[in-house]
């Protein structure tokens, strides 16, 4: 495998509704900030890959308009995934592995504000048996939370603690949408949204975007003083129908973690794509993390959850901490689908 690193990153300030900007206006400054940081010319990337969703945007081929932001002229080698940007990064990493690229620009974005997100996400369900019932993403997560509590994986009190810890941690994250939390006791006395989930258990609805620059080997060292090397990266899917799954565990995360080599060294920091509080212990267990790992110091998706970008942001948050020298080894997790169905795990390391 070729050594590939994240050498530059940028995010938007995440907000509930970016109501003055269209998608291309939202992502253009983010892309250009990452490009400038990398010191690579904007026409000089060997490959470009993005992630977004037509259903979020409410229009087909919605990625076509954001291509305007990357200066695809003269024409560029480019691809797009209808998944979180973490998978766009994965495709770019694969491209670099083939030797056909040494550098790549990766970006993703989501504006959830135009539509009714929990209902829009119901269209991800099996179209024959589940989607006609219009279960929202919150309903579905509540089912998972219910069995997780019943099985002793978590508790409402632990969930409230996770919400409180995450949002308070986000106070130091300049891009976060929610940056403080009421006390745990107050959270627990609040109303249920979909029992056993309360509002604080759910990630906010967010508009935002993210961009990442990847480079291989010496190219990475040339453009970054302390590259965040991708030591392992893998993604796996679980089945879809909840009656076929034990929702208290995420076997696909376990497989991806093993393939990515999570257990090969200490995990100083982990950024987990847990959009609901009860998912954090499920992901931690599947990754094999213990209490020595700092989880979601950025606040995680509970502090800002731009769909299609929140997974890639997990890699960015770990990479940023490696770039700064704060940590030497960390794990990022991204998810797609309902109830942690599709999962990507990456191990990032600094040198020396």
């Amino acid at each position, binding site marked *: 495998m070729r050594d590939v690193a994240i050498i530059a990153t940028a995010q938007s300030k995440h907000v509930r509704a970016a109501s003055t900007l269209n998608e291309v*206006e939202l992502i253009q400054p983010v892309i*250009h900030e990452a490009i400038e940081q990398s010191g690579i010319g904007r026409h000089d990337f060997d490959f470009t890959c993005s992630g977004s969703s037509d259903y979020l945007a409410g229009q087909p081929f919605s990625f076509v308009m954001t291509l305007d932001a990357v200066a695809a002229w003269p024409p560029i080698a480019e691809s797009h995934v209808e998944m979180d940007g973490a998978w766009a990064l994965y495709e770019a990493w694969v491209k670099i592995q083939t030797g056909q690229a040494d550098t790549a620009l990766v970006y993703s974005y989501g504006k959830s504000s*135009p*539509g009714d997100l929990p209902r829009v996400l119901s269209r991800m369900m099996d179209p024959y048996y589940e989607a006609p019932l219009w279960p929202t993403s919150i309903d579905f997560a509540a089912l998972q939370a219910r069995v997780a509590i019943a099985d002793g994986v978590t508790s409402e009190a632990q969930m409230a603690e996770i919400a409180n810890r995450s949002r308070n941690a986000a106070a130091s994250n300049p891009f976060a949408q929610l940056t403080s939390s009421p006390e745990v006791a107050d959270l627990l006395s609040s109303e249920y949204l979909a029992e056993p989930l309360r509002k604080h258990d759910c990630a906010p609805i967010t508009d935002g975007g993210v961009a990442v620059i990847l480079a291989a080997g010496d190219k990475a060292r040339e453009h970054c003083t302390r590259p965040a090397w991708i030591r392992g990266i893998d993604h796996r899917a679980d089945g879809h129908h909840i009656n076929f799954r034990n929702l208290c565990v995420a076997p696909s995360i376990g497989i991806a973690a093993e393939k990515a080599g999570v257990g090969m060294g200490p995990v100083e920091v982990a950024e987990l794509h847990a959009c609901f509080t009860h998912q954090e212990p499920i992901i931690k267990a599947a990754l094999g993390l213990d209490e020595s790992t700092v989880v979601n110091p950025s606040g995680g998706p509970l502090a800002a959850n731009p769909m299609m970008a929140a997974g890639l942001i997990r890699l960015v948050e770990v990479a940023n901490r490696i770039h700064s020298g704060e940590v030497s080894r960390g794990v990022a997790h991204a998810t797609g689908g309902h109830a942690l169905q599709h999962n990507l795990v990456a191990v990032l390391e600094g040198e020396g």
Partner: protein
Amino acid sequence: MSDSAPIELPEGLWSQPAVDTSAVDSITDVESVQLITTPAKFVYDYTPGVARTRFLRAIEQKRLVGQRCPETQKVYIPPAGVSPVSGLPTLEEVELGLDGTVVSYCIVNLDFTGNAQEIPYVSALILVDGSDIPIYGLVREIAPEDVHFGLRLKSVWVEPEEMTTSFENIKWWAPNGEPDVPKSELADYV
């Protein structure tokens, strides 16, 4: 399970995989289901964005505005906020004319719009005066067979009281009587 005719498949090259369908075959007391309908309706509140908002506010006042790419100096209509060639924001607004020139077109013999256009009608690529990229528009008040490259057009607008923040303010385009623009001057716009 289906009661439609079996689909013809080439013999010898591939066969259907062996699947035990005995359970399905034993279902004889219910009609087969070939179609389920799940109506889905979503309302989206689109954000035009900064550049398009300026464009829409102008079109509400019967003006057409474009935006200039800071690198190539090309003028875009309708502006999206970013120049696709340089990837840079287009911040300079440019007042455009209300006339334009046909750079290409087609003659349509079916009503694709669902609002009973006269058939046939002409859909043209029109280069608005002062801009560098053609837009699509309907051409009327001329026989379809008389439309040609370089034909000069004026925009025909809805009544003042019907004006909104929409491209629909332009009903169609019609000949303005000016002499044709030579083909050579239009070469870069298709």
